[in-house]
């Protein structure tokens, strides 16, 4: 029994790391990588210009952090869209399933690697605001910042895993990729804190993990102590775990269904 569990854990880990490493190599040549990254400095300039023009430089932190969160979500949408269907079209899915690795964890591992794009996007946003407007964002609580960034990346990858299965099960990937950007930026409070929304909208927004991430990341740049940090981290963890569980189970269900229909290699 113990040996079986150890083997199972090993399978999950192997799947995750194989996916992670594979994606790092693959991303270098993919247009989606540059698509997700290239807009970050422009968005930083756009949002910084709003703050400076309206005399609200006290909100500059919002302008620097938002492009990174937007890049993470753009990457989630771009990369998850065809992650499973591409394996299906090029006949790789059957081979992957025959191997002893966990396919759902492989997908999650690949999407976690995509989240590495958050780091260069933050760097570009940070430098753009600094060079163009002389605003070099301070980080007063580096521990909170690093923790929030890590959990946000994992939660985004988890949400992308759920999306990847949704794309292949029911929805047209392109429509969803084009549609789910701004509704999530709005509800996720990436620039306007959801606490400023009307009560009913704030309630809905709190179900979007980005609303907790954005609050934490902004608070980490402020000199005041971070309020309710525990609650924010817990909610981020909970929503991320729920997305991951949903995503992994959806992929398992899809594979089961495709096996039944003999449709593993079909589109």
């Amino acid at each position, binding site marked *: 029994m113990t040996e079986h569990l150890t083997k199972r854990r090993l399978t999950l880990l192997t799947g995750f790391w194989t996916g992670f490493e594979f994606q790092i190599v693959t991303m270098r040549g993919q*247009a989606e990588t*540059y*698509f997700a990254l*290239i*807009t970050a400095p*422009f*968005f930083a*300039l*756009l*949002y910084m*210009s*709003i*703050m400076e*023009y*309206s005399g*609200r430089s006290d*909100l500059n932190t919002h302008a620097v952090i938002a492009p990174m969160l937007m890049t993470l979500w753009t990457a989630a949408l771009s990369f998850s869209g065809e992650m499973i269907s591409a394996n299906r079209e090029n006949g790789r899915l059957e081979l992957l399933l025959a191997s002893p690795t966990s396919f759902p964890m492989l997908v999650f591992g690949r999407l976690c690697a995509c989240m590495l794009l958050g780091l260069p996007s933050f760097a570009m946003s940070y430098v753009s605001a600094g060079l163009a407007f002389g605003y070099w964002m301070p980080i007063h609580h580096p521990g909170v910042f690093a923790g929030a960034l890590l959990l946000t990346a994992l939660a985004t990858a988890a949400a992308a895993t759920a999306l990847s299965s949704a794309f292949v099960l029911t929805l*047209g990937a*392109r*429509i*969803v990729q*084009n*549609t*789910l*950007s*701004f*509704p999530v*930026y*709005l509800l996720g409070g990436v*620039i*306007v804190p959801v606490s*400023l*929304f009307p009560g009913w909208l704030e309630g809905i927004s709190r179900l979007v993990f980005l609303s907790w991430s954005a609050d934490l990341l902004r608070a980490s740049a402020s000199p005041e102590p971070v309020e309710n940090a525990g609650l924010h981290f817990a909610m981020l963890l909970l929503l991320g775990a729920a997305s991951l569980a949903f995503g992994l189970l959806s992929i398992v269900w899809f594979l089961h269904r495709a096996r039944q229909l003999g449709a593993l290699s079909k589109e």
Partner: protein
Amino acid sequence: MLQPVQAARAVAQGMVVAIADFKAFYTWRTWLGAWLVRIVCQVAFYSMIGHMVGDSDYVVFVIIGAAMMACVAETLMTSASSTWDRTTAGTLPLLVGSPVEPGFFYFGRSVMWPLSATVTTSVAILTLSFFFDLSWTPVQIVLLLLLVLLASLSTYCFALVVGSFAMLYPGARNVMSAVVTVWVSCFCGTVVPVDFWPPAVQWAAQTIPMTHGLEAVRGLEGGAPAAEVTVHTARTLLSGAAWFLLSLLLFRRNFSAARRGNALVG
């Protein structure tokens, strides 16, 4: 010398493909329930920023700017659709072999985007106007639709130039449209006036039709004299026409190179 009838026929032939592609891309349900909702959310996103940082005048400024920004983003989907004959449909060799004037054909080929953008942008402006107490008279609404249509079509001419380059580098089609969209959003007066930026950027922004289209719509909303709105509209159309002429040359150059046997149709 190309006759007007031939040019019109090429545009009409392109439009046949445009309609078929649009139907394949969207159903009524996905266009209304997904795309239109996304555009309204985009404008709401920026309106909330305006509400957070400024007064009600600034919110109105941002609503119009953000809606026109969404118009640019949708129209720039021309960058992708200009590559589909090469990448997805595989019909580019047939087009290159035909006696069609490519610039006019491609003007018809992606025209679904500015037409769709006209509706989504207008709906977004009017929807957000409702939430932020911005009122329009019936005459203003008609003129708004007209100005948005002209701004969309002029921006489309600019997007065709981007499309002519995307045809050569189809892998970069989305990167090109994203960069151009966000550049226009940043520097052409959508959320801050153009004169906020350094002179060189201001000068470059004057070449973009949307800069003038925005001035026209804001003039209409603010009750500016008709002559002033007309001047801004004329500038929108003039800059659109200049980009269209450039796109004719670039598409012709692409096809000429392809007929000489370069990799475009390989």
